[in-house]
């Protein structure tokens, strides 16, 4: 079976790690891109070139290396801004990851704008990184948290959401794509409804930005958080996109070098955007690697990537549901991205993952940083296989066959 949209054989050659063999010469079958994606050679090389040729601290130096490093760093910001459809590059703030981006909003925007009794709406399918920062705030400030329920099929219950909006929430924060169910939530509709109720919105884009075309203007997004490492880029670098007027009105997050315009012994005035939120020497090589990752994704085409993952997910759901005793959670293929979480009767997810590993197949087992969602389904843990642009239909077959063997062993 071949994908119509991407030349996957060619793409696989761009990822050195995919030719790795393990456990007695078994080809690596990497089905854990939801946790972190593999990196194409262009990303690895961009970072290596930077260290070999350019390395210098940015922004204040006038020597050649510093000029080049600054240009490369800011150039990456511009390409990333364009990639998500931002109006201005200054709306792209570099952070360490999605988690830090969400915390930035919780510490800076929320502490300025929310008072005791204010309502924040989240959903039952959130990753811990879009729960715990708000729980900390709730404890500290008396903020009230409400949750959009998840239906048995793994979708958000928008009728209940409509009712919750009558509480006049100040913020609605939700993930655009679930890292467990794979559900692609109707972000534009959720945001429109929130705006009509007067709320600001935050999208956890950790899964959507790597896998779907995402345009902040088209979505009407106020804040969008995402991580480079899930979209073929390096670890340690992420983005908070914020609408310019919101960012302008926010107090700084961390204080230090780079984020100031002027400092006296007793006071400072903050720098302008985006530097106001980027205190200290940033992850320069990682930003440059991130820029290369975005270039790579653009070259492949986000629509093509989404279509390929859609096809492979549909095939995986078919193959997996043929296995007796295997139960998938999440909606049907039309409504989800390339994430398949499941349980198998009589075998714990950990054991499944371990047995698959011995065949060279990398999947994840556990609660995937979404304990409340697992509680919602009464499951302590699930096994999760996830797909990206480099995965093949053959790999899905290998997965299904290995699961049959695991079943036999425990049978």
């Amino acid at each position, binding site marked *: 079976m071949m994908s119509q949209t991407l030349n996957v054989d060619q793409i696989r050659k761009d990822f050195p790690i995919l030719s790795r063999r393990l456990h007695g010469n078994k080809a690596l079958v990497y089905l854990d891109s939801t946790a972190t994606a593999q990196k194409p050679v262009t990303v690895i090389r961009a970072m290596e070139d930077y260290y070999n040729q350019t390395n210098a601290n940015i922004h204040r130096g006038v020597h050649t290396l510093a000029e080049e490093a600054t240009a490369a760093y800011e150039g990456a910001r511009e390409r990333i801004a364009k990639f998500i459809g931002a109006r201005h590059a200054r709306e792209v703030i570099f952070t360490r990851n999605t988690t830090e981006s969400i915390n930035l909003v919780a510490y800076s925007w929320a502490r300025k704008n929310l008072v005791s009794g204010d309502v924040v709406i989240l959903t039952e399918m959130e990753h811990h990184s879009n729960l715990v920062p708000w729980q900390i705030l709730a404890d500290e400030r008396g903020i009230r948290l409400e949750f959009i329920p998840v239906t048995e099929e793994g979708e958000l219950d928008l009728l209940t959401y409509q009712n919750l909006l009558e509480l006049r929430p100040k913020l609605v924060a939700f993930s655009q794509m679930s890292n467990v169910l794979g559900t692609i939530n109707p972000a534009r509709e959720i945001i429109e409804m929130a705006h009509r109720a007067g709320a600001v919105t935050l999208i956890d884009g950790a899964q959507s930005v790597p896998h779907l075309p995402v345009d902040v203007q088209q979505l009407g997004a106020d804040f969008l958080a995402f991580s480079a490492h899930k979209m073929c880029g390096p670890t340690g670098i992420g983005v908070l996109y914020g609408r310019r007027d919101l960012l302008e009105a926010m107090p700084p997050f961390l204080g230090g070098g780079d984020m100031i315009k002027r400092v006296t012994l007793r006071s400072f005035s903050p720098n302008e955007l985006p530097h106001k939120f980027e205190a200290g020497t940033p992850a320069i090589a990682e930003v440059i690697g991130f820029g290369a990752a975005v270039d790579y994704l653009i070259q492949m085409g986000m629509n093509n990537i989404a279509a390929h993952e859609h096809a492979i997910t549909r095939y995986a759901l078919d193959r997996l549901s043929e296995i007796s005793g295997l139960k998938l959670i999440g909606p049907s293929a039309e409504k989800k991205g390339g994430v398949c979480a499941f349980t198998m009767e009589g*075998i*714990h*997810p950990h054991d499944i993952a371990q*047995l698959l590993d011995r065949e060279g197949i990398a999947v994840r087992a*556990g609660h995937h940083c979404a304990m409340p969602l697992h509680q919602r389904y009464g499951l302590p*843990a699930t096994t999760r296989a996830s797909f990206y642009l480099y995965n093949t239909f053959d790999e899905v077959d290998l997965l299904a066959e290995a699961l049959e063997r695991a079943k036999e062993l*425990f049978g």
Partner: protein
Amino acid sequence: MDDLYREVIIEHYKNPTYRGVLDPHDISFEDENPLCGDQIRIDLRVNDAGVVTEAAFSGHGCAISQASADLLLESIVNKPLEEVKKISKQDLLDLLGLENLGPVRLKCALLSLKVLKAGIYGLGETDDLLVEEEE
């Protein structure tokens, strides 16, 4: 398919001897592994001489954690608590017949021992230090 899943482990996982709860009990403790959600509770009955007379475990988790709990309890019944306190990480791994467990699965294997020791010492919570003594 796998040396980790030797018969003894699958057998103790599927047909554990010591699964259950003891009510009343003299010692009971429960904890979970936050990484994977594995959860184990261990109940003991101990006589006046300080010897374990009955033991049971409950909870849920992977084959390694559950088989480890069953084998561990099998090894402590009719033993004095003082001796049970001396069981080391290596003793348990020997019981399981496992070597070269990676850091993640090691936590699964050792959860029962942590719970057992925290219960015997009457601690409020488990601690990795309980199973990380001398190597």
